[in-house]
């Protein structure tokens, strides 16, 4: 095994991992404020990509306008989902909430497919497919751009949590009863976090839609995003970024060694193994803070 090849695997793995982080940030935003694991984030990402495409196609917007427009629409969708579906379930057992997000996932996927059909469409971001050469390493341009977007979204979130509204959200994630008693509108805060997660889903959908085309498979990012979020700690944004890099590198380098042994496709196995091991060994993840109920 040659050193440059390993370096290339590592760098590309880390970049792909940062794209998983972009997805996981949406999960973390919602979990932080309301302790709801949003299993519909994959479907939201898929919806986001279709909204971007339709803004461009039906309304004739150029892409630089279609993406912000899609973000506004998805912001509204996130608020609606929280208001209609999640708020009535506040205080219900976790199984009901999990099932609700699963139901939302199924519903959003089914509706989107029924309206737009299942054929894969290009997003048309116009990024060149020629790889960048760094020494003898080949690096994908779109992955590099995506990694940049992830860092930008992460920094935006960090700054956002220092603003007045952001401090409210942090208070809610700290202790929602205490926030309630000092007059912070908790419901509105939770709604806002759903809206922000939907906006983050648009960012993820544009990058991933460019990489693999816009179709139902965008919603399959859920398992990887969930693994990243759990590994980093479900309520830690920094954790999501770090864990994304770790998972990406593990997946890329590990599958390179494992694939010849098991006959291909070991990426998914590595992801599932990381998820199981994290939950068994360190359920609160690398940077997570929430107490895990144990027996």
């Amino acid at each position, binding site marked *: 095994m040659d050193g440059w090849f390993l370096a290339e695997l590592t760098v590309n793995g880390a970049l792909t991992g940062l794209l998983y982080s972009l997805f996981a940030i949406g999960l973390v935003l919602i979990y932080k404020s309301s302790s709801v694991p949003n299993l519909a984030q994959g479907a939201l990402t898929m919806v986001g990509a279709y909204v971007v495409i339709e803004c461009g196609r039906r309304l004739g917007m150029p892409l630089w306008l279609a993406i912000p427009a899609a973000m506004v629409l998805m912001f509204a969708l996130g608020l609606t989902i929280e208001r209609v579906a999640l708020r009535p379930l506040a205080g219900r057992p976790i199984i009901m909430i999990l099932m609700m997000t699963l139901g939302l996932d199924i*519903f959003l996927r*089914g509706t989107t497919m029924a309206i737009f059909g299942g054929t894969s469409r290009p997003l048309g971001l116009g990024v060149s497919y020629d790889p960048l050469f760094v020494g003898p390493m080949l690096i994908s341009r779109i992955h590099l751009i995506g990694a940049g977007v992830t860092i930008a979204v992460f920094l935006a979130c960090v700054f956002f949590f220092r603003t007045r509204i952001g401090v409210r959200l942090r208070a809610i994630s700290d202790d929602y009863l205490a926030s309630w008693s000092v007059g912070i509108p908790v419901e509105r805060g939770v709604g806002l976090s759903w809206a922000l997660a939907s906006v983050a889903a648009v960012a993820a959908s544009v990058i991933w839609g460019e990489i693999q085309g816009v179709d139902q498979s965008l919603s399959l990012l859920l398992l990887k995003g969930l693994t990243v979020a759990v590994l980093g700690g479900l309520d830690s944004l920094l954790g999501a970024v770090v864990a994304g890099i770790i998972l990406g590198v593990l997946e890329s380098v590990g599958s390179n060694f494992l694939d010849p042994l098991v006959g291909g496709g070991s990426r998914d196995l590595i992801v599932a193994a990381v998820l199981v091991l994290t939950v068994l060994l360190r359920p609160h993840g690398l940077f997570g803070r929430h107490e895990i109920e144990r027996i």
Partner: protein
Amino acid sequence: MFFRQSGIRHTDYITDNRLFRIPADRNLALLALAAGLVAPVAMPAYHLNSFLLPWLIWTAAALGLNLVIGWAGQLHLGYAALMAVGAYTSVHAARFGLPWELAFVAGGLLAAVIGSMFAVAALRVKGLYLALTTLALQFVMDWMLSHSPWLTGGSHASLQAPTLRLLGMPITGEAGRYFVALGWCVLVTVFLMNLRRTGLGRALVAVREKDYAAAILGVNSFWFKIVAFATSAFIAGVSGAVLVVTYYFLVTPEQFTVNVSIQLLAMVIVGGLASIIGTYLGVALILLAPGLINLLFAQMAGGLGVRFAPETYAHIPTAVYGALVIGFLIVEPLGLGKIYRNIRDYLLVWPFDQMKK
């Protein structure tokens, strides 16, 4: 009306602990059983085969899932993987030459062993993290099935199930297969109905309500969680095998993916946690309603002269199924079982609704 409670008094523990405390319940159950027994004669073969038979088998499977979620209170998102274990084990055992009776049991037992391994995770974490672990294990199982050619023939292969023979008789007719499914479903139902009356059932409920309170009362919550997982896995394994041998006739890895796990979970939730009649109704709704609504939609579109792409029709059932889950969770989180119970409670005291129920 039919559920008159007057004159029914339970004066000792034995009568109070009877399977049916009100004769009307027993009569209803017997009526349903009789309807099930005459169905092959009374129903067209097409309906019997494509609606009633899958309904019964999925109900048996969903009851097993309800045991672990509704009675024992443990989340489980990897149930379909255990059905796959049962299905593959029994088909392989039967191809090897084992009689089907033993093959079913072997499938159930291996599923129970693997289900108990899932439970090892349950003993370390609870709630969300348990759900995530079982979900990950489901993915591991999916992966194993599609990447083990010696077991399944690979991702796009299928394995033919040998002809079903029970007690020396080959079962090839539609009615015969139906009775196998009915028999298994009735067996599971009777087991779960009796759960309430046994120490096992009460221990499971105690663990569900508060596991350390149960531990203080001397209920070993560790042990009963394993028992719950293993029992439900046994039911899953045999249901998977029955499903394959009476309905699919061949077994492929795609039959038991994570979507099936989610569908079973939806059946349990829509039906109602820890409700037997609810599970029957929930399975019927999740299995049949999406197709029926799609049919209705197609007719309406035809009537209005609007035409949709075939893909639209292909995905409407999914959307309807999602909407059903969302709608139930918002409107009646306790599911169809609760609605049934409300009606029953109303009839119990009709026309004197103001009396204590």
